């Protein structure tokens, strides 16, 4: 099976390429990338006016299976992924039961293989049952297919235990992803502390709580010389700590999500439960700092923290509503807004969505080098569309961007040389 993507603008920062080229895929691999390719028997896809890039990798999603299949399944979640231009996703372990043992990891991979859409990289728990008490079997989990470790949704409460995790992970070269939150400061909170908590009469989650927790992880990375990846950075204070850590040469990487560089706490002012997320939407000052950090290289990755919830968890009192919003199908257009405003260029966008997540997770992809897996995203940076619930492939529709006019859309998603999603 051969696919020839003809005449697209190829943006591949892993090779410093940004020009119009033909791309030939064969037997699941990238076999040629040249000015003009003729290939007998290949299916030719006209990509004129479109961007061709290494497949996007979302290193932070919640697929909800096993346990909460009414919100999302591995099949619907990976369907949403490929519709958004993602060829791979890393799924967080806070399922029910949590992914803290090899059986669950294998279950996830089997379901993903059966769905046959995006690649799925299971992230396993750092501690058994995400209870913050004792470490999981890193070796067994890795053998079953886990690619990273995190207690996402809950921080590892004790610094000494996090230290052990960072040390032990070195034996397996497994990245550790930290949900950085000082629980004693955020407990009972629903929105950003400051304008939102004062206006809405809700308990606040202070930005300093995130910064305190990030600082702990940075110090532990220094102590253990083991890499740590900070999930969903939402604050200026957090960005400053990460910047200082990188300047010191510490093995710290970081991601943020599109809602943190697009929205502020103002989105919560009408008690819109779709804007209730943890970490919460922050101040305009925080938003600007996060956005700038993406341009400067302080934040390495755009990940969505795709967190599907049904009406059962969202159409209710704000304080009862679950935290989280879906993001797989809006990440690309929201990231393109940064390009439009000159915060980043297209090459940096592809670095944030593809090259860096592959590097941090140590998974294949993130490049169109010859011989690499044929995971490719083709998108139209100009197409305008309005987000409506009917467009959403995810089982849940909890997006604060419903009704937004968006610009830029995935047109074709190729995984292992197979077209898994097409709008062409």
């Amino acid at each position, binding site marked *: 099976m051969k696919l020839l993507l003809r005449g697209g603008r190829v943006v591949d920062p892993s090779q410093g390429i940004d020009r119009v080229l033909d791309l030939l895929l064969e037997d699941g691999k990238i076999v040629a990338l040249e000015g003009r390719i003729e290939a007998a028997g290949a299916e030719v896809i006209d990509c004129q006016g479109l961007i061709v890039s290494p497949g996007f990798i979302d290193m932070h999603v919640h697929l909800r299976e096993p346990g909460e299949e009414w919100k999302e399944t591995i099949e619907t979640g990976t369907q949403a992924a490929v519709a958004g231009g993602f060829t791979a996703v890393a799924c967080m372990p806070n399922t029910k039961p949590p992914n803290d043992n090899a059986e669950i990891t294998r279950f996830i991979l089997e379901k993903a293989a059966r769905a046959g859409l995006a690649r799925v990289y299971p992230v396993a728990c750092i501690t058994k049952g995400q209870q913050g008490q004792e470490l999981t079997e890193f070796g067994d989990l890795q053998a079953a297919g886990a690619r990273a470790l995190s207690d996402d949704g809950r921080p590892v409460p004790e610094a000494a235990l996090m230290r052990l995790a960072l040390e032990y992970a070195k034996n397996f070269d497994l990245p550790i992803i930290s949900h950085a939150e000082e629980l004693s400061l955020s407990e009972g909170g629903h929105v950003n502390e*400051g304008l939102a908590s*004062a*206006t809405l*009469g809700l308990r606040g989650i202070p930005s300093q709580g995130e910064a305190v927790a990030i600082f702990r992880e940075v110090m532990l990375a220094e102590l253990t010389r083991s890499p740590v990846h900070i999930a969903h950075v939402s604050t200026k204070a957090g960005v400053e700590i990460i910047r200082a850590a990188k300047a010191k040469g510490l093995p710290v990487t970081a991601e943020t999500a599109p809602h943190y560089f697009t929205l502020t706490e103002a989105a919560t002012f009408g*008690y819109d439960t779709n804007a209730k997320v943890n970490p919460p939407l922050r101040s305009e000052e925080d938003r600007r700092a996060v956005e700038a950090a993406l341009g400067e290289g302080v934040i390495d990755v755009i990940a969505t923290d795709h967190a599907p919830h049904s009406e059962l968890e969202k159409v*209710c*009192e*704000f304080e009862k509503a679950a935290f989280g919003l879906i993001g797989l199908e809006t990440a690309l257009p929201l990231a393109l807004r940064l390009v439009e405003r000159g915060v980043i260029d297209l090459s940096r966008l592809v670095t944030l969505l593809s090259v860096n997540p592959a590097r941090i997770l140590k998974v294949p992809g993130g490049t169109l080098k010859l011989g690499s897996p044929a995971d490719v995203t083709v998108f139209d940076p100009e197409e305008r569309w309005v987000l409506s619930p009917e467009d959403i492939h995810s089982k849940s529709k909890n997006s604060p961007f419903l009704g937004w006019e968006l610009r830029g859309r995935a047109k074709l998603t190729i995984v292992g040389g197979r077209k898994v999603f097409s709008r062409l």
Partner: protein
Amino acid sequence: MEVSFTHRHLLDISSLSAEDIDYILHTAQNLKEVLSRPIPKVPTLRGKLVTHLFFEASTRTRLSFEKAAKALSADVFNFTARMSSVEKGETLLDTVLNLEAMGTHLFVIRHPMAGAPHFIARHTKARVINAGDGFHAHPTQALLDMLTVKEKKGTLSGLKVAIIGDIRHSRVAHSNIVGFRKMGSEVYVSGPATMLPPEQEALGARVCYRVEEALEGADVVMALRVQKERHGRKLFPSLREYARVFGLNARRLALAKEDCLLMHPGPINWGVELSPELQHDPRNVILEQVTNGVAVRMALLVLLFGGGSS
């Protein structure tokens, strides 16, 4: 006075204009006369069903709303969460939709969660009045406080209003800060700093860490109840210390203007936020606030049902 009142709900003070507030207070003053008649009842809302949804304890607010509805000849459902299907797990939304299906025209809701009235208002065709939601807002309390001040001072602008107590957890304080600021007065807040977050300034209040600074030259002094039931952990060391440092007594009140008004939304912890010596003080208008509460709630019922310019 020909003003149109087009609101369908009263969810918070922020969504009212100064003209709206004037109009509500003016209507309340007119309706107050009804309450002093030998038969304090008019037929204005005959055939309307007002449902009181109380998910939290209340004496004054609930009975004041009931009195207001009955004085206007409306029918009243009194729903309290205890002994209802809420205890079987029925959701707020289902509860509301069921009571709407029984013919409710207007919900009065008190709920421990901020934004619950806003949530209901999005899902019902009935009108909604917020009778207190979490730490967020208590707009009818602020309106009755403003009515009391207006009657006594003749104006709501150019005054210094001091609010003393647990500001962080007080929906009464939040609605009064917004309301008095809107009407052109200055609002000073003070109390234990653990309950006095700096972001109150964003609402327009001046934060004072010394009670005396807030009280100095005040026209209106409002004490808040120390809400023992709301906090997970102790936010000040003891009630004794609270009374000594933040409690209002004759000596502290002497810092305010001689003709100041002493107010409290109730229920009062005598000996904590208010010294018992203030019980019969001529500046104390606490029970007049209660009477005005009925008038303000009557006005809101009439206005929300579109009885605008009577």
